């Protein structure tokens, strides 16, 4: 079957079997390997992508279900050389060690800040509760998302200033 999705702002139309999982579609058919496969059982969240802006576990979606919808992967976060505030937050606050969970954590953080620009630490912990970090780096992940919230708030106050790369 043919599946057409808008991936990181670009429309892609690819043939695949109906049984193709969204994560395999993204990694193998689209060549975007920033989306990781961790547990492959919808427990860990390493495969998180945004589907129409909402975080989902792409190991537990069929590619066919994403047809006609917008998919955002970690590769879609940066705008050219400018990091997304959430990426900058993970950089500055050392929000990663091995980096395997990081794409999922950042995408969940990005979606959270769209809905709730000023979250409490508890709200961040709640939002990332479906994503597992085996380096146990949750403290810095929470700080990283708070950093992104602060950056976005500052950018909103001074819209002329683009989000810088630190």
């Amino acid at each position: 079957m043919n599946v057409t999705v808008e991936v990181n702002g670009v429309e892609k139309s690819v043939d695949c079997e109906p049984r193709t999982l969204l994560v395999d579609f993204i990694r193998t058919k689209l060549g975007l390997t920033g989306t990781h496969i961790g547990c492959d059982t919808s427990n860990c969240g390493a495969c998180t992508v945004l589907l129409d802006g909402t975080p989902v576990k792409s190991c537990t979606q069929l590619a066919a279900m994403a047809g006609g919808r917008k998919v955002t992967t970690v590769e879609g976060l940066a705008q050219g050389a400018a990091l997304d505030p959430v990426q900058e937050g993970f950089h500055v606050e050392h929000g990663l060690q091995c980096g395997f969970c990081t794409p999922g954590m950042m995408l969940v953080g990005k979606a959270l800040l769209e809905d709730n620009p000023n979250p409490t630490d508890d709200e961040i912990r709640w939002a990332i509760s479906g994503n597992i970090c085996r380096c146990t780096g949750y403290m810095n992940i929470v700080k990283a998302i708070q950093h992104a919230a602060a950056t976005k708030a500052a950018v909103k106050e001074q819209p002329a200033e683009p989000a810088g790369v630190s």
Partner: protein
Amino acid sequence: MFPAAFDYSAPATLDEALAILGEHGDDAKVLAGGQSLIPLLKLRFAQPSLIVDIGRIPGLSGVDSENGTVRIGSRTRHRDVEAASQLRGRLDVLLAAAPQISDPLIRNVGTIGGSVVHADPQGDWGAVMLAVDAEFVLRSAKGERIGPADGFFQGPFTTAISPDEVLTTIRIPSPSGARTGGSYHKMERKIGDFATVATAVHVVLGDDGRITRAGIGLTAVGPHNIKAKEAEAALAGQEPSTELYAEAARLAAAAAEPNSDIRGTAEYKKDVVRVFVQRGLRDAVKRAQGANS
């Protein structure tokens, strides 16, 4: 892991979906959010030859109420039930249970109807449906029938639904103005794990402060979600009291039929039922009493 090969159909209308199911029967499987079905496909516990994705059919999701009945579209996602503030004070048990289902990412996709029909004995919605005496609207190409939640759950992953039917709407009696309260207590080892034990409680209080009716559903302590009928009967018409809760909780624990497994012994799980029902009744009655004060 990846599923065995299947054909895929994404009908645009319910009638089209029902026609396909009528033709293919047991060989076809309905896909809603996929948060239970896709893991089963990947493990190859399920190997249907055809997947009928109802995700593109309009009109199957949303929460509304009419003439004292709350109607929840079967494809309403857990997160949308979580956010359905109009249920506050009417069906608190749904609002209490929704955020405890799996994790936020699963709740972004998984649906209430999918969970009900999947009928995992460790699933949360079944117990809630039993507590609130929900009715399921089941449609097939031949017509429509109403199935009460009581009796719908027949065994692990087994319900009264036929292969050619789709659950379209969940109907819950909820007279406006009634003093109701609800609670959902769940023990899980970690977020996203299945329940070790969970209990759903829904109470309606009369003007005299007595319990008009109480509903109690149990999760993960039997081959399917269990309705604790003897406990419910013991509560009806009674004045709320600590002693009454203790007696009802004892009866609810007696209705549980848990197995010993890695999450705990049968004896332990029965006792958790007792403790949770006791707490659940206390919390639910407190909410119901607060609703009018």
